[in-house]
């Protein structure tokens, strides 16, 4: 068990791509930590650099109280589960699980015993003599986890742990994984491009873009108060509405209506300033009747998402684009969906609106905000 500390970590590939850009990050002992971002953001490179499969071009990696920056992967005391599980097809489940112990020269009886006990913990006892090719995807994943667990590493690294499973199995595996991590209490870092997976599993999430971390926080923090418009657009199954707005005294001119400026940022805005007004579709209430303090527009699209529908409205844009329209999405409970072409009113719930200036959240906790990366950098290894 150990914390992971990254200082100024930089990775530049020989072709000049800067995959990690002076990254600072602390992952606490026993934490379940997600690296989240679109493909090419550097999250996989970061994971592989922690593992030692990539050597950093600058900065340091510490695991516990050891500086492992230049240690080979085998000496870092980490275990990694790959996206394809990387089970050796010519070995039985037992031999696969015992493989790291075999390399560490543990005696045959000892390592088989250890493998059997680890397999038992993961419900794999009946499969010990099978080969990986005879297992289902979920079973293969558990064998890969067992192999990682068998030698009691200080850190688990999981690369897209759920992406090779079909949708139903994925939910099951997600719950299983979270419980396993709780029980083992091993510091675990996993990479995912799926924000729902990150929100559901992680204790804390780092949202990455272009080789830099744009926000670090708990799932609640990242969901409720995205530090910038990038995170706001990336987190949430429906992206946040980001509407251009202008400050008018104590009010905001948004989509041809005046809304009160949220209290916590009132002192930080200057009159006439151009900002972005952000509110999640879940935090908007739709009404077919006129309401005060509501944005109004025409319903364009209704997408049925099961227990609710996602309704898109075209609302008039604020200057300087007066005359044009901008799209606002709102979540409407089942049974109350409007028809396309209807006119609707949407009211933001109090305390759920966010104001962004130059892409950064105003009134956000300062340390969470990281400046935007230079454009045109970053690649997933």
């Amino acid at each position, binding site marked *: 068990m150990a914390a992971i500390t990254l200082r100024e970590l930089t990775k530049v590939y020989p072709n000049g791509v800067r995959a990690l850009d002076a990254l600072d990050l602390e992952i606490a002992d026993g934490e379940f930590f997600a690296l989240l971002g679109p493909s090419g953001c550097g999250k996989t490179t970061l994971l592989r650099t922690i593992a030692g499969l990539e050597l950093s071009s600058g900065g340091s990696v510490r695991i516990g109280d050891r500086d492992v920056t230049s240690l080979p*992967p085998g*000496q870092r005391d980490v275990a990694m589960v790959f996206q394809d599980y990387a089970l050796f097809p010519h070995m039985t489940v037992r031999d696969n699980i015992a*493989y790291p112990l075999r390399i560490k020269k543990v005696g045959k009886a000892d390592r088989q015993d250890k493998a059997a006990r680890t397999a038992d913990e993961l419900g794999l006892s009946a499969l010990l003599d099978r080969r990986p090719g005879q297992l289902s995807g979920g079973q293969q994943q558990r064998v890969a986890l067992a192999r990682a667990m068998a030698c009691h590493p200080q850190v688990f690294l999981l690369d897209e742990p759920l992406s090779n499973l079909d949708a139903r199995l994925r939910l099951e595996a997600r719950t299983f994984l979270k419980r396993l991590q709780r029980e083992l209490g091993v510091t675990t870092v996993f990479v995912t491009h799926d924000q729902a997976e990150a929100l559901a599993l992680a204790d804390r999430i780092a949202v990455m873009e272009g080789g830099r971390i744009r926000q670090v926080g708990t799932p609640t923090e990242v969901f409720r108060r995205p530090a910038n418009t990038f995170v706001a657009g990336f987190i949430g199954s429906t992206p946040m509405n980001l509407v251009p707005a202008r400050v008018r005294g104590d009010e905001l001119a948004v989509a041809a209506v005046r809304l009160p400026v949220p209290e916590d940022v009132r002192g930080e805005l200057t009159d006439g300033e151009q900002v972005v007004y952000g509110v999640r579709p879940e935090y908007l209430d739709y009404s077919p009747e006129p309401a005060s303090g509501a944005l109004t527009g025409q319903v364009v699209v209704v997408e049925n998402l099961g227990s609710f529908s996602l309704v898109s409205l075209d609302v008039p844009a604020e200057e300087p684009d007066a005359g044009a329209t901008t799209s606002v999405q709102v979540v409407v409970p089942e049974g109350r969906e409007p028809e396309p072409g209807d006119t609707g009113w949407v009211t933001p719930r109090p305390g759920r609106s966010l104001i962004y200036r130059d892409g950064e959240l105003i009134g956000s906790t300062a340390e969470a905000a990281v400046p935007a990366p230079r454009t045109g950098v970053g690649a997933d290894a």
Partner: protein
Amino acid sequence: MVQVTSRPDETVEGAGPVTGPSPAPDAAGLGRARAAGFLVPSMVLILLFLVVPAAWTIYLGVTNYRLTGLAAANPEVVGLENYTRALSDERFRNSLVLTLQFVLGSAVIGQACLGFAIAYALRDRRGPLRRVVEAFILLAWILPSSVVAFLWIALLDRDAGTLNALLGMPGMAWLLDYPMLSIIIFNTWRGTAFSMMLYAAALENVPRSHLETARLAGASTGQQLRDVVFPRIRGHVLTNLLLISLWTFNDFSPFLITAGGPEQRSEILAVYVYKVALSGGELGFGAAISFIMLLINLVIALIYLRMLGRRKERA
């Protein structure tokens, strides 16, 4: 058989209107007659140039047929005499041992090991270094035997050889003092390209994540090869060994360098047969030895195929 295969024809015709002239059930829609038509030319060629000469060789092997003399006009069937003579012939047995040395030294050890080493060393490299190395190795493979043989004679020549000039030891007669070593190194140099290319393709099939899992467990390069790479490319290794063993066993090009000499010290079987049958004119005896070679080839192939088959059962 005919009944079984023709039945779908009838059902298709009976099932309803079939547009087009071909009611055949096969994937290409050819029908048996036309499919056979496509096969006939190649079958005729195979029969003419492979089956008939092979049968003719087997027949010749039991006669005393010669290039010249009485037996050339009226060859007589002599039964297994050629075979018993070959098996008790010191020169034949010497030749067989040399051939096995040649196969083991230049194919199994030389080409396969060197080819794998080069492929493994170049596996993650891209760019000019890899291309230059590959180009040179391929060049050795694609040049005609006669050209290559001349180059090697020029390299190893006693008086004006390049190697002696490089080493500063004029008068060293490589081809006379070390004839087997010379042709083993020659054949290794010449044939490594095939193994290298085959292994390079095979190594592409080893998933990176498997190697990385082994690295994370702390496995050394040797352990990675043992636990990850070789189990994965076993089939490629066996196929490669099968092919290069057979090619090397039947290879004639060493004749162009040493002509089997000196004193039959590099007289491998292919060279021996040539000398006996064509220089010596004993076609019947040569045919018998050829047939023995064919049997040895078959045994080699069977051993490898058995190993391949066992691998499939285990997988």
